[in-house]
């Protein structure tokens, strides 16, 4: 019986305690830099798309929300013909980011993605691509990869020696 009264008193005392509710839209929420929010596709420092259409992100995605089609341009540089993420499915697990060999796909600390129409939650490549390098400013895949593309032959990549002519090695 007494405990009931004490409970009442204790609860009453809460009138004088600060509220824990955050007034969200007016007081923006603090989001840590490594927060896993909206997914973007980043670009090389020179402005080219980083994504090489390797499908690893689509395979890693546990909810199958990523869809893409790889293709090549005339110079042999691979890029996604389309790249589509259905954010109404995405669970922001970050596996795609882990899987990406080119640092193209990245998760950002943005979560305010409400839409009135479900269809609007499907982001196309143009919605996903940003004009920047994201978390990895200096990295340029095509500059380090040993693939021959337009404007860069084999052996011209960074920290790469020109290819050895095997026939010269013959005794």
């Amino acid at each position: 019986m007494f405990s009931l009264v004490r409970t009442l008193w204790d609860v009453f005392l809460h009138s004088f305690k600060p509220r824990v509710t955050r007034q969200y839209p007016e007081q923006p929420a603090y989001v840590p830099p490594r927060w896993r929010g909206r997914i973007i596709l980043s670009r090389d420092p020179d402005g080219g798309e980083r994504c090489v259409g390797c499908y690893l992100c689509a395979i890693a995605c546990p909810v199958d929300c990523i869809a893409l089609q790889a293709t090549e341009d005339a110079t042999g540089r691979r890029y996604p013909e389309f790249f589509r993420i259905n954010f109404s499915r995405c669970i922001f697990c970050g596996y795609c980011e882990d899987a990406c060999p080119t640092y193209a796909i990245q998760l950002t600390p943005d979560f305010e993605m409400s839409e009135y129409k479900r269809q609007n939650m499907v982001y196309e490549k143009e919605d996903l691509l940003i004009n920047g390098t994201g978390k990895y400013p200096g990295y340029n895949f095509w500059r380090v990869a040993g693939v021959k593309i337009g404007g860069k032959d084999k052996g011209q990549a960074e920290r790469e020696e020109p290819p050895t002519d095997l026939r010269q090695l013959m005794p």
Partner: protein
Amino acid sequence: MTSPYPFAAIFGILIVALTIASGLIWIERRLLALWQDRYGPNRVGPFGLLQVLADTIKLLAKEDWIPPFADKPVFIIAPAIIMITVLMSFAVIPIAPGIIISDLNIALLFFLAMSSLGVYSIVLAGWSSDNKYSLLGGVRAAAQMLSYEVFMGLSLMGVVLLSGSFDLVDIVHAQRKIWFIIPQFLGFVLFLIAGLAETRRLPFDLPEAESELVAGFHSEYSGMKFGMFFVGEYLGVTLISAMITILFFGGWMGPVLPPIVWFLLKMFFFIGVFILMRASLPRPRFDQLMAWAWKLMLPLALANLLVTGAVVLAFFH
């Protein structure tokens, strides 16, 4: 003394009661939030005051669905009964000198009669829904409200003994010297608990216990029919608070401020107490509820009556 302008009094009290009751929806949510360190509704209008209006519009606009398996006439009547009985009780509440619809010489009994008729609303709602959870809710309501009615009446008889009247105006006048909360503290506690059970407020909301009965007796109700149960509950809280004010806290009496202000102040204080209880107390098991009623509350109420009677007979006769 009945009010000189009966229709003005009726409409005035009707509108005030309904306003307070619907306003309580907001007050309760704000207070609960306060005690749970939250804000509660604060978006619609200043301090969220228009939330009530928004809710009303929402309820009115919802589909008014009557299940095909329900007993239709009873299903429709049930929510009306609770509104009728509670609003009828307001007719005998003296808010301030002259502000009363009907100064009945059996006002207290009238209040008890109306609250005992209120049971029908819940029981019939549960029965007519033809849904096992609703039926269980109705059965619980019948058992609970019948049991608590018994000592609700008995706990008030101490006040009647002290004031010598069933007339609420006389009871208020009898508290000139001392509020009945002092001599009738036990009666007050018992009435408070019985009032909680009669209005099915939270520690005793077993008829609708959401977690086990999926809202119990009003599972099948939607739209304004549900709204009537909703408002009926808040009207009940207002009524019980007004009764506590009148019976134990001197009604409209108080210094400096005008009587009606005193009355409303006291009443809102008890509404706050009701909400505080909802915020803090856990719901008992049903057998505990019944055991308390018959094994603890009833003997206490009888003992209170006995002692009060003896004292009145010995010292005031």
